[in-house]
């Protein structure tokens, strides 16, 4: 189904955004129908971190309330969770789409007004903030905002407005990095 869509819009670089949205909604619907939960991303990172703690520092594992909290809600191997498998799929799916569209290329994308080095420092910082915030907020743009909104979760709407609201408030100060 997805391949057919690509052919239909072969004249443009990307899929029509509304068509992309409908397909995204169908994927999210499928996730809920199959697993009774939506899509996510940061949860998989948490699984990897918990798993690494278990291997690298088993003594820290017992002391850490963070790991305890994770183990209360997840049973068995932390890598054998739904989101870890789903995120492995995301990497494959992204790669396939990029390969079909001819977008596979190693590069640092940034505004001509900033250097590659500055872009990478900002990307690292942004990742640290986003990673931290996704734990505090119990999910990121995928798990909390998008999936939460689809199931009409009040928490999902709150997180969505906090993420994008903050982005808009700060956008002016960071315009040089993007425009």
């Amino acid at each position, binding site marked *: 189904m997805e391949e057919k869509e690509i052919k239909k819009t072969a004249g443009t670089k990307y899929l029509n955004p509304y068509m992309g949205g409908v397909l995204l909604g169908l994927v999210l619907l499928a996730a809920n129908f199959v697993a009774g939960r939506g899509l996510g991303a940061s949860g998989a990172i948490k699984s990897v971190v918990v798993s690494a703690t278990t291997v690298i520092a088993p003594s820290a594992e017992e002391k850490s309330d963070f790991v305890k909290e994770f183990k209360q809600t997840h049973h068995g191997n932390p890598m054998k969770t739904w989101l870890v498998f789903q995120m492995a799929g*995301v990497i494959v799916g992204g790669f396939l789409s990029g390969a079909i569209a001819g977008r596979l290329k190693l590069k640092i994308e940034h505004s001509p007004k900033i250097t590659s080095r500055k872009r990478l420092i900002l990307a690292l910082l942004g990742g640290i903030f986003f990673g931290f915030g996704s734990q505090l907020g119990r999910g990121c743009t995928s798990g909390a905002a998008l999936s939460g909104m689809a199931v009409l979760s009040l928490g999902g709407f709150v997180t969505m407005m906090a993420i994008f609201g903050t982005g808009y408030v700060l956008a002016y100060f960071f315009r040089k990095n993007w425009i």
Partner: protein
Amino acid sequence: MGPLAVNEIISENTNLFLAFIIGIGFGFVLESSGFSSSRKLAGVFYGYDMVVLKVFFTGAITAMLGLLLFSLFGWIDLSMVYVNPLYLPSAIAGGVIMGVGFILGGYCPGTSFCGASIGKIDAMIFIIGLFLGVIIFALGYNLWDELYMAGYKGEPKISTALHLSDGFFALLMVIIALAMFWVAELAEKKFPREEY
């Protein structure tokens, strides 16, 4: 019938296999919509590219309406579908911190994996940052667990909180989204730029 895994219609391993397949669909749709480009994503904050708003809200509404229809047809028991719990202070604080991360880094976790999958080095660095952020949260957990656990409100639905039926709220969302799409199209005309 649904959710299949919760009703034990499919085994745990089948569920994980389907997670992988669904993930492929997720990654494919994100990448083909242009979510592998941070400059495209950041466009939503400046009006020059509103693809995030269009895809995000069309996706949320499609899934929202799909779930309501599936429930109406008796294909899914919505009481068995996970609804995110609400801890108000941490939901807001976490969201604000994520917003800072978004404007600095240009990606969110899901889209950064998409970007990395097609070779964006900035996305790979963002992912390293994500891991560091989660590790910092884990290491300092005792410093913020009070904030993390404060203000638990159960798993409230926005429709219930507003005293509306699920269907009526979904209709409102569709109308709001259409209005936003109209504004988004105007913004893109006003702030044109080349495709990234």
